[in-house]
């Protein structure tokens, strides 16, 4: 890889040993993929916000960085907290939480604590080059906002934040952004989260182009999150909706799709659990719910009482806004537990076989033993709709 004088100086230790290793990491990362050069990034988003007690290497690297006084040089946001205070089990599982947050904030990251960082805290524009982690945020930034980022790992994200650059390869380049698989829809009742899950499973790491459908921003978020959990999709297009898919010719770069697949109503329904009766917990909000999403879903709960424990997991800033709203009191009266943490982390430390039902394709993938239900299935299981 071609490095400029400043980058070479950093590698040679001109900015200290920790900074040299950060730059060497990015060079090794880029060379594995044939990157020709480093490019500056506009922002970073860091995914490593769970203070797992059983992890050591990550904290060891962060301790080296903070001891050297390194700071982020571009706007940098943070993923959600894991809910360390929610149970005794979590208190132990995330024993390193306090120290981890101290370190992340001491390097200058914004304490937004949300995977939906693009909801106000860190909003990129079309064509912006980024070095983001968090598979669902990478997906939204690439697909819906037209920004350019690879699926960067935890720690790679921090190396970029403190050096301000990323190796140029993959989804930063035009070639990798073109559509590869055409996805046709034979669907009567849209379930975007289930659709994302199925597309992820079938296209794995290719770029799907979904035929036109008027998905809302909320649906795009939830569909993308599921696609990046059941698959490794970093970028999807929706014809006539997302910024790089005005028409077939543009999105496929003038070539034919390598494959065409059809997702049917039966496929979507096939993901729904057949055992929806009386789960132990119903969870909404993975990726975290925005204010609009909480309002849309929340009105089903007004004046009702949940019959099984029900969680809303919200973007912290969106929850602060909701608290000033009359709906907040109604949700509390209905018995909804409203959290601002990550449900994947918060619920993963349970060893038992709790029956958890969720309308999130992402949470369904990660939570061992969880069941999937459409939004309506989940509202019904909560006891607020017939």
């Amino acid at each position, binding site marked *: 890889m071609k490095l400029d004088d400043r980058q070479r100086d950093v590698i040679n230790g001109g900015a200290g040993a920790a900074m040299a290793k950060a730059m060497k990491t990015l060079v090794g990362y880029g060379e594995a993929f044939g990157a020709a050069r480093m490019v500056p990034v506009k922002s970073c988003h860091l995914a490593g916000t769970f203070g797992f007690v059983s992890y*050591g290497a990550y904290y060891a690297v962060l301790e080296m960085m903070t001891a050297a006084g390194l700071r982020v040089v571009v706007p940098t946001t943070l993923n959600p907290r894991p809910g360390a205070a929610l149970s005794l089990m979590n208190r132990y599982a995330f024993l390193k939480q306090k120290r981890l947050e101290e370190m992340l904030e001491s390097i200058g990251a914004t304490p937004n604590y949300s995977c939906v960082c693009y909801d106000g805290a860190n909003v990129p524009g079309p064509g912006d080059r980024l070095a983001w982690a968090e598979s669902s945020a990478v997906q939204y930034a690439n697909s819906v906002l037209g920004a350019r980022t690879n699926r960067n*790992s935890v*720690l790679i994200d921090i190396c970029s934040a403190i050096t301000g650059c990323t190796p140029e390869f993959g989804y930063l380049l035009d070639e990798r952004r073109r559509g590869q698989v055409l996805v046709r829809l034979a669907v009567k009742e849209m379930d975007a989260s289930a659709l994302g899950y199925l597309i992820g499973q079938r296209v794995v790491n290719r770029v799907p182009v979904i035929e036109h459908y008027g998905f809302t921003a909320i649906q795009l978020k939830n569909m993308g999150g599921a696609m990046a959990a059941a698959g490794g999709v970093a970028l999807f297009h929706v014809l006539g909706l997302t910024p790089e898919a005005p028409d077939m010719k543009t999105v496929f770069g003038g070539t034919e799709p390598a494959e065409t697949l059809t997702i049917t109503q039966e496929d979507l329904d096939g993901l729904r659990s057949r055992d929806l009766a009386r789960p132990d917990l119903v969870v909404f909000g993975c990726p975290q719910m925005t204010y609009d999403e909480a309002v849309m879903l929340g009105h089903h709960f007004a004046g009702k009482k949940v019959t099984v424990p029900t969680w809303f997991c919200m973007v912290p800033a969106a929850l602060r806004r909701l608290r000033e709203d009359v709906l907040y009191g109604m949700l509390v009266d209905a018995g909804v537990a409203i959290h601002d943490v990550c449900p994947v982390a918060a619920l993963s430390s349970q060893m038992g076989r709790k029956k958890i039902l969720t309308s999130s394709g992402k949470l369904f993938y990660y939570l061992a033993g969880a069941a999937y239900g459409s939004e309506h299935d989940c509202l019904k299981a909560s006891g607020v709709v017939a």
Partner: protein
Amino acid sequence: MTAFRGAGIIGGTASGPALVTRMPVNFTASFTQATNQVPGWRSRIRDRHHELFRKDVRGTILVYPATIGSTYTGMVLLELMYRGCAPAGIVVGHADSLMVSGSVLADVWFGRGIPVVEYGGSDLLDALRDGMLATVNGTIGEITVP
């Protein structure tokens, strides 16, 4: 001996019993479950969606088609390498930014990376069975099997 020539992604050589799957792997779902904290289970795959559920990757040559899932992947693999319970080497159908990061991070920060070879042909999968001794050379991109 049969040799397969792919692309060297991360240099170095390693040998071990092959652990082979045709299903993409979600390393985060595999290695961050509560049950991974049971002593000796850190390197056991705990992703219930996967056919390798309960298999131990430690010391193996892991052969799989593609990485899926969370950006925790690099940190999860870094930890396995840091603690010496990672696969000895990896052969992947399509090298991706997350899995490769794990080895780069382990190499730069702790000198413990593992070799990675990209090989997309299905003839390797036909020739390999679980437990067969495989050798990977990430420097020249070669996989050899008995």
